[in-house]
């Protein structure tokens, strides 16, 4: 099975737009997964029918039983995140600051702090309008551990792909290079980088290439908005060449991209011959190199 993870470093380069197009081209040969659990958008293009949903426990949360609390304050002192505060005559947990380490429960001399599973999001298994299974998720507001939810989405996608005998998993990755990004890259067999010909895009691509080197992952690249600045585009081409990352295609800045989102259509459904042919070539690249087991 081949797992293609679409990443960008910088947000807004067109990751989801390209993932949706690849998903359409792959049809029932693939399972698609949206790992941008912070701000999931792939469903807006693939308009899936939900089959099932599951609550996601992303960590633990302490509960302080104020009845037996001697108000010694050891818990508040031990907390590295200052998540236990003294308010209105009792110690309370600030859920947004708590990292779930549980040290408060260990230091409480009265044994009045207990740890409880914390539901941090939801994950969904759906069927996209291209006849394939799709896994997506929502992270609760301000929750941490989106890396864990990303791992859950990927696990569900892998299980489905095995059950349904699919050759590909196509993953829409999160922006950045931190915890969620690392989690999304774990187990990738192919990484498709979507960058844009802007100085910010170039800078973020450099950081992403370093991350891929760190984990020993191979990648290919798409340069989006390639005609915005020729110097930047040339610098990006050079960066990719130096890193041994082939540039598969370049796409010009065009109204077709935002319009496709407004119409809820994939790029292939916009009827632009040049864009369609370029996308087909990208997909052929993955099929050619698709030594599926």
């Amino acid at each position: 099975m081949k797992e293609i993870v679409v990443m960008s470093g910088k947000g807004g380069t067109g990751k989801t737009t390209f993932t949706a197009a690849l998903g359409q081209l792959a049809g029932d040969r693939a399972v698609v997964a949206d790992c941008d659990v912070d701000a999931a958008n792939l469903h807006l293009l693939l308009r899936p029918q939900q089959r099932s949903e599951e609550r996601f426990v992303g960590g633990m949360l302490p509960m302080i039983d104020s009845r037996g609390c001697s108000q010694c304050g050891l818990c508040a002192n031990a907390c590295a995140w200052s998540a236990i505060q003294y308010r209105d005559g009792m110690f309370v947990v600030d859920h947004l600051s708590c990292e779930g380490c549980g040290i408060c429960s260990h230091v409480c001399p009265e044994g009045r702090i207990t740890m409880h599973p914390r539901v941090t999001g939801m994950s969904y298994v759906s069927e996209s309008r291209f006849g394939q299974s799709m896994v997506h998720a929502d992270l609760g507001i301000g929750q941490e551990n989106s890396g864990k939810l990303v791992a859950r989405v990927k696990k569900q996608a892998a299980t489905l792909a095995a059950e349904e005998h699919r050759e590909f998993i196509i993953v829409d990755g999160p922006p950045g290079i931190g915890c969620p990004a690392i989690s999304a890259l774990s187990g990738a067999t192919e990484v498709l980088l979507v960058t844009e010909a802007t100085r910010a895009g170039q800078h973020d691509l450099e950081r992403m290439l370093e991350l891929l080197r760190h984990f020993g992952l191979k990648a290919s690249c798409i340069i989006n908005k390639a005609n915005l600045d020729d110097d930047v585009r040339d610098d990006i081409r050079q960066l990719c060449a130096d890193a041994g990352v082939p540039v598969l295609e370049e796409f010009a800045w065009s109204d077709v991209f935002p319009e496709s989102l407004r119409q809820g259509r994939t790029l292939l459904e916009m009827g632009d011959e040049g864009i369609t042919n370029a996308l087909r070539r990208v997909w052929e690249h993955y099929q050619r190199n698709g030594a599926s087991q």
Partner: protein
Amino acid sequence: MTIAVASGKGGTGKTLVATSLAWLLSRESDTLLLDLDVEEPNAHLFFDAQLVNSELVTGMIPVIEEEFCTHCGLCQRVCAYHALLVLPDQVLVFPELCKSCNGCLALCPEGAIISGKKSIGVVEYREAGRLRLYSGRLDIGATDAPSLIRALKSHARDALGHVLLDAPPGTACPAVEAVRSADLTVLVAESTPFGLHDLDLMVRTMRKLHQAFVVVINKAVPHDDSLHEYCAREGIRLLAEIPYREDIARSCARGHLLPEALPETLPLFERILDGILHAEEVRA
């Protein structure tokens, strides 16, 4: 006043708005800009600013003093992150997994664990005229973005004048950590259904946090008024719209400050700034 610039979706123009406002403010007064997008910091690309210094940010990791360790296994049991592995003859520490909660240190019955350090990233400091810019840069492979964001925010404590925070994308803890201390947050939304969807996520986040906010639309086109309708329906004040134009996209691509490179956009940013500084959303 502390002003955060945020968006659920990435690439909506957060940094464009933050840098433009910082530039505008710094023409008149001392201004501090913190780039809290520590995974992919970009604000410095827009200023011709000299790097003044670079400070290493570290997190605590346990160091085992083997001569005192009895291999009782307590540290492994209390560690929620599986960062310690106690074997019969040694204790392995995995610094990448440690979240620096200090629990093992506090609870080791033998006092055999002392505090060590791991690098999380750096805080870079730059100056351009009356603008001071701090950027966080998370180490490659590091995952503790919130700690680096906290280290960055400590520089705002004794700041003179206005403080601008360029927040990371998303609605998870790094973004929340960024906007929590702001007096007002400017949500930058892109004029597409993706932008609308993620703006709604952000609006719900802000309301849950009881944070004051206003909206700026970026990449606005005349035939799409879905964001206007949303803001009207939700009773949210819309400060301004930055049009979807190729010359604006090109200017940003080159890392130019928009109101400087395209002076006809200057009144637009002045209006945004005026709307922020006189926002009635900000609680007294």
